[in-house]
């Protein structure tokens, strides 16, 4: 039992990461209907910016400057991509984000370099044994996993308060519901787009910190976006809690499957388990676990 829990916790770390990436997708998709292929590239870019800036300045300043960079990025995307393409079909915007994705990948590596960088924010890494009173021998976890979970938890709470309680958050939800009506009451769509892309950029930075601290900052980070897709299918494209829970389910599910079912397939199922789960979900519940309730009055 202790071993099972250990595997589960290990899976949750990957899950937190998937959840953070999926969260970035959901924010942008909800507010602008754009499926942002560049989310993974944004994670890499944010993490690269941070790790290289840290060579020049103290960590808190580097963090602030990285946030600033993601906001500038949002402004540029709004001005050069979203504004000219306003009112175009979703598929055209999607293709534009593919372009953005390649550009950001290339641009980031050109200015920041393309080696593997270790990101050390001084987060604790040593393993600890918890739940000793519950299981014999306790459960061995990495302290870092716990810290990552706490960081993700704080981020999600802050976002939830922002969305539910503030004037801008309310405007974001209004735009997500009906962008024409939002315009009719004087909510400026361009400002809203900059705000969601900035928020998404900051979420990407947090994801980059978690991932980069665990495995180093390197190109493969941007591929994590591919794992966010099954998470979105599971959790629903428009649901913030869905992104979180979907991420955890996929993360934990693939680790458990690898360890407990994998051997009977000869191993290696971790790589496709998430997609298979997503496929099953598409057949059973296409709107996802928490997909926005489609309001229908009878």
């Amino acid at each position, binding site marked *: 039992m202790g071993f099972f829990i250990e595997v589960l916790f290990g899976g949750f770390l990957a899950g937190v990461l998937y959840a953070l990436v999926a969260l970035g997708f959901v924010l942008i998709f909800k507010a602008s209907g754009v499926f942002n292929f560049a989310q993974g590239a944004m994670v890499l870019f944010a993490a690269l910016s941070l790790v290289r800036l840290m060579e020049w300045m103290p960590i808190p300043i580097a963090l602030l400057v990285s946030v600033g960079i993601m906001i500038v990025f949002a402004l540029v995307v709004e001005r050069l991509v979203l504004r000219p393409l306003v009112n175009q079909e979703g598929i055209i915007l999607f293709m534009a984000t593919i372009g953005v994705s390649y550009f950001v990948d290339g641009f980031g590596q050109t200015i920041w370099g393309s080696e593997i960088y270790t990101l050390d924010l001084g987060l604790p890494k040593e393993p600890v044994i918890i739940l000793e009173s519950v299981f014999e021998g306790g459960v061995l976890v990495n302290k870092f996993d716990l810290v990552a979970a706490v960081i993700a938890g704080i981020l999600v709470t802050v976002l939830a308060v922002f969305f539910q309680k503030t004037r801008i958050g309310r405007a974001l*939800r209004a735009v997500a*519901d009906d962008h*024409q009506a939002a315009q009719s*009451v*004087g909510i400026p769509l361009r400002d809203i787009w900059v705000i969601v892309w900035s928020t998404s950029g900051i979420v990407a930075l947090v994801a980059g910190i978690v991932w980069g601290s665990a495995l180093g900052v390197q190109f493969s980070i941007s591929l994590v976006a591919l794992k966010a897709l099954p998470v979105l299918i599971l959790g629903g494209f428009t649901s913030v809690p869905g992104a979180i829970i979907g991420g955890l389910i996929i993360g934990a599910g693939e680790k458990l499957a690898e360890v407990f079912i994998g051997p009977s397939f000869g191993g290696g199922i971790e790589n496709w388990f998430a997609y298979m789960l997503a496929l099953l979900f598409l057949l059973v519940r296409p709107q996802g676990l928490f997909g926005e309730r489609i309001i229908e009055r009878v």
Partner: protein
Amino acid sequence: MTAPATALLDVNNIEVIYNHVILVLKGVSLKVPEGGIVALLGANGAGKTTTLKAISNLLRAERGEVTKGGIEFKGERVDRLTPNDLVKRGVIQVMEGRHCFGHLTVEENLLTGAYTRGDGRQAIEADIEMVYSYFPRLKERRKSLAGYTSGGEQQMTAIGRALMSNPTTILLDEPSMGLAPQLVEEIFEIVRKLNAERKVTILLAEQNTNVALRYAHHGYILENGRVVMEGSAAALRENEDVKEFYLGLSASGRKSYREVKHYKRRKRWLA
């Protein structure tokens, strides 16, 4: 009674084209005096919504464009502004089909209407109470998701939301759509009250000519993107053609083709 020369809102001979090719308004002019209720009447597709959207500048979001003529509000050209600018100046549109934010509560819907305001929380809260005083039913439903409220409640929410921007002028598009006659009457009574008590100027687009002409002071009739008739509400109500073709009252029973032709000829002359 004709509209005075200095109007609050002056739409001057505008032409509107959608998608660069579809010519929808072919020179529409109208004036809305301060404190007035002006009705814009006409059948499906006449161009009422397009006219309102040209004023509120929501047209651009639908790839529509004012290609000729101009729109003045308080003597200033406003046709190059954004909807946000217009709301700040006091002109707000209540869209056809209500368009409430379904996943927001009724009260949150009202609060979104105050987005452009900078006069502080207290003033906004006072105005929420003001809206509830006009629409007591919204107060009972304040915590419900707007998507689950009835059509009448949604119409009230949409009007209340617009009021929250502290407007001087409301462009009200088909408030009667899909509502039971009694509710239509109720909503129009409130519109009249808002006009009388809060001095809100109203430009109203309606297919329901009968109701609109009872509450409006002045009316314009739109056909195929042109104004074909204009007059005080009382005069329009008594006009034989309006009676026959828009109010469905005919002294002579069924309309013959010749009468229709006669009407069309007269219309052309007017246009």
